[in-house]
């Protein structure tokens, strides 16, 4: 079971090369299949996650959640997806048409590009980039532009205000998010994600970096615009924030991208802090799925437990608490590494 997917890939490339294709072309076809897998993972995950989110919120709020369509309401999201697919396409007259159309495409593209470097199992990475962590951080920073595009082009006060708030919040929390990963990089001594996973074969980095993990988790919640940091799309004030004017498939793409980002950020958390795909008995790709889903469950738990935080508190929390804490964590980690060396523990 362990090397199931690797074996499939190897057999496939072997077969393609036996047909007379060169190694580059075999790689190219394999990449297309890998992309199809990522697209599948993204779509299926979103369908499962929306159902899970509804069930979890129902459970927390003593409701049933979806329960009519299929067993435990499992087909509810599929029905929703079909509904969104068949909705009329409305572009309001006053919008900035081209930017309005490009924004969802840009958002989902950026979100899917993140999956390129995530190790989804032992040796199961599309590209094992030597600057993998930095790639993840840089690409993730681009989603602010997509939100600004959506908010600006909608020509709607809710949209623009929502987008501006979103972006102000995201840039504020991006710094603690990045800084919290630096502690892990200092210990692992590499930006390559496979090296970071390998460095955790004995002890997970969450043991050495508990503060960084908590900082990462809080900053990631804000970065994803999820509750209790969902000020930008506070339903009672801004209807749906930057997405107010979007309907049908365009809106679905935004939703898809949001959950795609959620999966990517959670997978990154398990890779950086929870040992990635490493674990006993079960195959590696199953371990990363389990860890990612546990983290996503905690994200949902937090979202449905805490009330929304006020905008001014939200901004000052990032700059006045998280940023100093994450910087202090870097310094403490540096000193700690020297203490460890001095004591001869590593």
């Amino acid at each position, binding site marked *: 079971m362990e090397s199931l997917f690797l074996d499939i890939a190897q057999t496939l490339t072997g077969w393609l090369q036996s047909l007379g294709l060169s190694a580059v072309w075999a790689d190219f076809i394999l990449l297309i299949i890998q992309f199809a897998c990522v697209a599948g993972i993204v779509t299926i995950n979103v369908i499962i996650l929306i159902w899970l989110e509804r069930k979890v919120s129902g459970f927390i709020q003593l409701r049933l959640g979806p329960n009519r369509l299929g067993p435990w309401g499992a087909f509810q999201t599929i029905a929703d997806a079909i509904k969104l697919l068949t909705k009329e396409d409305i572009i309001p007259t006053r919008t*900035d048409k081209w*930017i309005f159309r490009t924004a969802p495409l840009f958002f989902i593209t950026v979100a899917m590009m993140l999956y390129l470097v995530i190790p989804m199992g032992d040796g199961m990475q599309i590209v094992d*980039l*030597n*600057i993998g962590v*930095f*790639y993840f*951080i*840089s*690409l993730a*920073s*681009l989603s*602010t*532009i997509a939100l*600004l*595009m959506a908010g*600006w082009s909608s020509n709607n006060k809710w949209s623009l205000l929502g987008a*501006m708030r979103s*972006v102000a919040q995201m*840039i504020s929390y991006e710094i603690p998010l990045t800084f919290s990963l630096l502690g892990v990089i200092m210990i692992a001594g590499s*930006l390559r994600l496979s090296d970071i996973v390998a460095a955790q074969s004995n002890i997970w980095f969450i043991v050495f970096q508990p503060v960084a993990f908590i900082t990462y988790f809080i900053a990631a919640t804000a970065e994803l615009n999820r509750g209790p940091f969902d000020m930008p799309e506070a339903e009672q004030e801004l209807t749906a924030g930057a997405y107010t004017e979007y309907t049908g498939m365009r809106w679905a793409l935004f939703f898809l991208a949001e959950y795609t980002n959620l999966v990517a950020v959670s997978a990154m958390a398990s890779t950086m802090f929870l040992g990635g795909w490493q674990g006993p008995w079960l195959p590696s790709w199953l371990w990363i799925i389990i860890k990612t889903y546990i983290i996503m469950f905690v994200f949902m738990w937090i979202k449905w437990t805490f009330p929304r935080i006020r905008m001014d508190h939200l901004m000052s929390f990032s700059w006045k608490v998280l940023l100093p804490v994450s910087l202090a964590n870097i310094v403490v980690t540096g000193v700690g590494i020297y203490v460890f060396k001095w004591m001869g523990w590593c």
Partner: protein
Amino acid sequence: MNLSDLVFIVTALITVTAAVGVVGFKNIVHSALSLVLSFLGVAALYFQLQAGFLGLVQILVYAGAVSVLIIFAIMLVMDKDPDESNRSHAKQKYWGGLIALLVTLGLGAAIGSTIWPQSSGSLPEDSVGALATLLLGDYVVAFEVAALLLLVAVVGAIILAKGAGEHD
């Protein structure tokens, strides 16, 4: 012409077209978004030169941070019809065109007359590590001066923005 040349030409064309769009668009937000595309094109060019770290810095700092700053600055002063916000005056257009032409010619002459040394060595395996060694070793003064520069930039901009706020 092989495939990598073709990729280079396409990326360069996108980058230059986007840069022209920055000047040409009537709506200044369109110009700003065009600038983002241009930044991303430059990042793609860095990737083609195997300078991955530099390309990602370009994405993180320019496309992800500078463009947000530019758009927020636009939103700070937006008080006209956005479709008229990036008007170009006829006189400026000619002078601008002339200067652009001169710069292009000057740079072209400089590039043409330089003999580019070609290193026979292979690409460094760990470019980020090499960068760190250089930055904190030989170029440590420049490195600390960069921090001072950032400090001055933050302080100066806060003073400017505060001043603007008081006049409201």
